[in-house]
């Protein structure tokens, strides 16, 4: 499981995360909610080992092992995958190449090209298209598919609903729940309260770099007004 303890992280002089602590248990979907600029992406990047930001203090441990200071590829090798903000597909690669470029890099992966295409039949139809030629929904699917190919146990998702039509958001929520059934843990950061509530077991609310509220699934439904107040108009 993932344990973030008292994490301070920022860009140059600007401190963004000021002592964030959170946990993701095996098989759990945890949502971190917050408005723009509250540190959501900084949190995801810090866990993945991406710099900037620089981690000032605090610890991130995964299955009992510290991750702070490891390079991103070492962290990915420990079965943590990322679906980044804006998807960040490769314009020069075809859909298939996004999924096969890691092939043979590690021992047998539970996820194969066929399995990802089974989950997203739309991608199979588009397998020879390049990253830049896909619709918003397809881009989201491919970003998830690419992350699955490293055979993750924990998936970090940065605003998966960003820029998607409501029907696509729903489709993606279904996929996230499917992945949970596969045994994946998921940490997703979201501005979209409804989308997060549809899938999350637990929710943290992030405000100016600190966790100001947390609640589990049972409490969630009763607290939407609190969450609304925290997040502003949604």
């Amino acid at each position: 499981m993932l344990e973030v303890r008292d994490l301070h992280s920022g860009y140059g002089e600007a401190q963004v995360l000021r002592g964030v602590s959170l946990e993701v248990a095996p098989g759990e979907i945890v949502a971190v909610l917050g408005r723009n600029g509250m540190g959501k992406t900084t949190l995801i990047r810090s866990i993945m080992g991406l710099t900037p930001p620089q981690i000032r203090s605090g610890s991130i441990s995964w299955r009992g092992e510290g991750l702070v200071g490891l390079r991103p590829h070492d962290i990915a090798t420990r079965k943590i995958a990322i679906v980044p903000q804006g998807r960040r597909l490769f314009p020069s690669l075809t859909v298939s190449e996004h999924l096969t470029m890691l092939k043979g890099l590690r021992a047998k992966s539970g996820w194969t090209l066929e399995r990802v295409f089974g989950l997203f039949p739309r991608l199979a139809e588009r397998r020879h298209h390049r990253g830049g030629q896909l619709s918003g929904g397809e881009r989201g699917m491919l970003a998830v598919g690419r992350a699955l190919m490293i055979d993750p146990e924990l998936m970090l998702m940065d605003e998966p609903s960003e820029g998607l039509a409501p029907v696509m958001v729903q489709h993606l929520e279904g996929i996230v729940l499917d992945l949970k059934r596969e045994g994946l843990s998921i940490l997703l950061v979201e501005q979209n309260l409804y989308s997060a509530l549809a899938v999350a077991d637990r929710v943290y609310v992030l405000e100016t770099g600190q966790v100001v509220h947390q609640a589990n699934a049972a409490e969630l439904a009763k607290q939407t007004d609190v969450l609304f107040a925290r997040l502003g108009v949604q």
Partner: protein
Amino acid sequence: MSAFQLLNGLTYAALLFVVASGFTLIFGLLRIVNLAHGALYLVGGYIGFSIASGTGSFVLGGLGAMAAVAAIGFVLDQGLLRFVGNNELRQVLLTLGFAFVLDDMALVIWGGDSFTVPIPHMLKGGMHVFGVYYPTYRLFVLATGIVVFAGLWLLLNHTRLGALIRAGVDDAEMVEASGVNIRRVFLVTFLLGSALAGLGGLMGGAFLSLYPSADAEILVFSLAIVIIGGRGSLVGVGVGSLLVGLLNTLGQVMFPELAYFVIFGPMALLLAFRPLGLFGRATPA
């Protein structure tokens, strides 16, 4: 232009392609302004010359030149370039200085005389093509250029390493976050680009001969080719090499006084209207 001159242009283009394709891997894809590429060509030629004359084997000379220049590229990349990051001005100054050092070391080791790499017996003499009697060796250079083009095209477009190189050029951080040590991928690319300069040195050393300052012309032509073709485009390097090779030959025959202008005049015009070159794309992000 006669068939003989046309073949001269084509074979020169093939040599330029081998060198410039290495240059486009480094300058076009990795975005490292490596002004030592010409020096790598020249040193590769000298080393290939020494090995080929010592062992009597042209093939060993080629392999040796590629391996040695890849090793020099390793020192340049890991020992020096990694400390200057993406700062292009620093890259220019560093690699230019490295080129001077290499050139001077070559002067100490091989002296100022000009050398011609001995070519194997079976490539000596000539053969009849397109109605002219033409040196076999230069046709071999043309064939090698085509083989290198095909090999690089397959590598970049149809292998996993090629996909990783292209993905890394698009977004290195995302490749890292997918579990790939992108620095290693880029290092392999740099070494391959260097090795191609070494191979070009051996091949060019057999018909243009090797002498101090032979690196400058090759470097300038490689730059012109990659800029005309578009940074990072293999097809662009192919077309750019053909243009520069043919224009250079044409220029020397028809306007010997203006030979350079025949290449760089059109290049300046092209860049005025297509700043990214013929096949160049805007860099993502």
